[in-house]
């Protein structure tokens, strides 16, 4: 099947098998390998991307379902070699170690902060429940998200 998607601002028209998952379309067809796969049960959130501005686990969506939609992946977050405020907050608060969960964590954060621009720590912990990290114990991820919220306050309002 042929689908057209706008990915990080660029339009792509590609043939995909009906059974192809969106994450495989992003990684294998478009070659955007920043989106990672950490499980096969939609549990870990490593493959989180934005679909029309909302975060989805891209392993729970078929590529054909994204036809005509806008996708943002981790590759679309930084602009002109400047990190996005969320990326910057993760850097400054040591919110990543091996980095494998990080792209998904950042995309989930982008969507979460849009819904809740100034969350409490407890809200951050609940809000990121769908994204697993094995390295950090979440301590610095939570700090990073709170710092990002603070930094983005002006931008979001």
């Amino acid at each position, binding site marked *: 099947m042929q689908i057209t998607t706008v990915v990080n601002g660029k339009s792509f028209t590609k043939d995909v*098998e009906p059974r192809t998952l969106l994450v495989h379309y992003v*990684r294998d067809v478009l*070659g*955007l*390998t*920043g*989106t*990672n*796969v*950490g*499980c*096969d*049960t939609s*549990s*870990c959130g*490593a493959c989180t991307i934005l679909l029309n501005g909302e975060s989805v686990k891209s392993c729970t969506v078929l590529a054909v379902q994204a036809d005509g939609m806008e996708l943002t*992946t*981790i*590759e679309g*977050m*930084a602009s002109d070699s400047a*990190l996005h405020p969320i*990326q910057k907050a*993760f*850097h*400054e608060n*040591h919110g*990543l*170690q*091996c*980095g*494998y*969960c*990080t*792209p998904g964590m*950042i995309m989930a954060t982008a969507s979460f902060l849009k819904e809740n621009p100034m969350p409490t*720590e407890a809200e*951050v*912990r*609940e809000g*990121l*429940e*769908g*994204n*697993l*990290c*094995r*390295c*950090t*114990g*979440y*301590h*610095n*991820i*939570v*700090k990073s998200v709170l710092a990002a919220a603070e930094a983005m306050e002006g931008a979001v309002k």
Partner: protein
Amino acid sequence: MTVVETGSSERVIGKHLLRREDPALLTGEAKYVDDIWEQGALYMALLRSPLAHAKIVSVDVSEAKKMPGVIDVMSGRDLQGEWAAPMPCAWPVTQDMKNPPHYPLATDIVHYVGDAVAVVLASNKVSAVDALAAIDVNYEALPAVVDLEDAASDRILVHPSLGTNKSFVWKVEPDNDKVHEAFASAAHVVKNRYVQQRLIPSALEPRGVIAIPHPYGGEYTLFSSTQIPHILKIMLSMTVGISEAKLRVIAPAVGGAFGSKLNVYAEEVLALTLARKLGQPIRWTEERSENSLATIHGRGQLQDIELAADEQGKITAVRVNIIADMGGYLQLLTPGVPLLGGFLYHGLYDVPAYSFSCTGVFTNKTPTDAYRGAGRPEATYAIERSMDALAKKVGVDPAEIRRRNFIAPEKFPYSSAPGLIFDSGNYLPTLEMALEKVGYEELRKEQERRRSGNSRKHLGVGISSYVEMCGLAPSKVLGSLRYSAGGWESATVRILPTSKVQVVTGTSPHGQGHETSWSMIVADRLGISPDDIEVLHSDTAIAPYGLDTYGSRSLAVGGSAIYLATERVLDKAKLIAAHRLEVSVEDLQYKDGSFSVAGSPGKAFALSSVAFEAFTAHDLPEGIEPNLEATVSWDPPNFTFPFGTHVAVVEVDEETGATELLRYVSVDDVGNQINPMIVEGQIEGGIAQGVAQALYEEAIYDEFGNLLDTTFLEYLLPSAAEFPSFELASTVTPSPTNPLGVKGVGEAGCIASPPAVINAVVDALSVFGIDHIDMPASPQKVWTAIMSSQGSGRKVE
């Protein structure tokens, strides 16, 4: 105190320097194995046994071969002639250790669910996986050995040819008479059995491998998601039969490991072997459910521990017998894991008599091997649970029983009964600091208030003081423990013509931030910016020597090698500078990238000029070779012994059995800290993994040897919602055994935290007369314990 020499007026060591690794990881630029494109690579998929123990009657691959996209399908028997040697176990812990032959594909018998029996190669991943279903394997089921005591009884044999399930019995028994006497004359004896459940390490990046042949040159390049590219290269050379000089192993970005990628796996051997056989690149990426079955598990021990103590609760002897689960085969370090804890069951307490025995048994389960902490979390759990039991028996507070038994600071270096020399330590301050930070007295009052107010949410406070051994390791000691390799680490420091510095390390980071920390060590010594220092690693063509990253060794051993190589380069630079300034070497001082002469402020020569001089070699002193480069292989004289005290505060809901971790305080002493931000990150991650062992995680097998929780839907990897923020503090007691005074921090968190949490849960439940809950303390387990408890006069409705 170890004073690290510096050439910098503003210290770099000790700074919270942000990680240079981050930008590539934050933007998706970093390449993990599965992100690497290799033109023409064939996709490998493995058919795995659905039975824990069975005879392979036949494997019919003919239908699978006809599937679209399939290039070839092979059974274990088809590949029998391909191997130069069986899969390696590098730690034959006893002379008579039993180690059954283990090949990448089973040929006659499968020994665990997940044991691979056939391999498919296809032009794409989907076709490879689709073809698995078309392979027809005829099995004849055999009874499975699952339980550890059942395994030790030899009722059913996992490997009948060995005649027993016992792989080895390994003992540390310096003086058994002394132990017997201590128990015979003890005022108090506590005796307990603890269970170390099996854990699935669950690095978030599954394993992956790409084997690339270069048929006309005869070389091979292997990308693997591994923490040991150097060890892997040697082992693959021996098992596949490819010259070590023709093999290059690269660990690209690696998405976590925790010991689970400290191995030589069937898929690595298969990919390389098939790349040789077909002359084509072969690639494979593990699925999560495969990871649960075919990547090593951790822990899996039954621990019987006894303490003898005098009237005041001063321990006079520790006696330990454990059964350790090897699984279906011995992987790279499987039998050595319990040994790493075998010297530490007396914890950080001054215990004169000690005896330890470990029986390693085969079962029809996934092989175990090193998982973060490897042996030391097990030992710490057993002694720290026992300390609480002893406190109760003696009738003192858990904090007080620890105070009475700590090794006194003046006893260091301390010779332990089992035969180690603890490098340095000052234990009491970590306990007192942790108690103060958590507000211990106030918590005890709050606990009492809740109890007298008949609250159904019970407060529990748990203490865990720990010492561990890391910085693996002095090669001589490893030799005496029959480990097949050394424990040194290699480093090269070179100052390039334009005065930029390259550091080549044999460590292989996978999230630890070595590039940042190693650049800080060199920057501090040379008095230059860390930005001018590149750190190269994890590619055997770039870093030919190395023993990789595990056992909290990288800083203490690898970092020390880097520091010493920097010193050596600086010594050479000094000779050149002295020659150019026409002064003697003794008159030169070095600071902030420049040599100067004491008392002659105008006479100076920059390191950058020395670098260019060394490169042009136009005017070097007699006998001095061109270039500024030094390589050091450093073999540590001893292990390092980090320590600390952690305190967990939990709330247990008696209606549901659910435990909530309210607070977690840790005070750790890991010696000098190069980058405290990274140190804290390591401790936080470790705490979370240990809390997960205490409350959530367990590889659950049924009686037939089926693993019941192969995905993250069943295996409870905790999320951010399960934790509070952690409250960290540290003390600094430098190690005298390495030039940086560092100890190591990779495993400390997960060593300390399981007993802290379980002690807290049991403390909360003590109101019901409950004195133990096995890990993981699930709501069901806790609730059942409450329901079946006699209580302490307390009504349970």
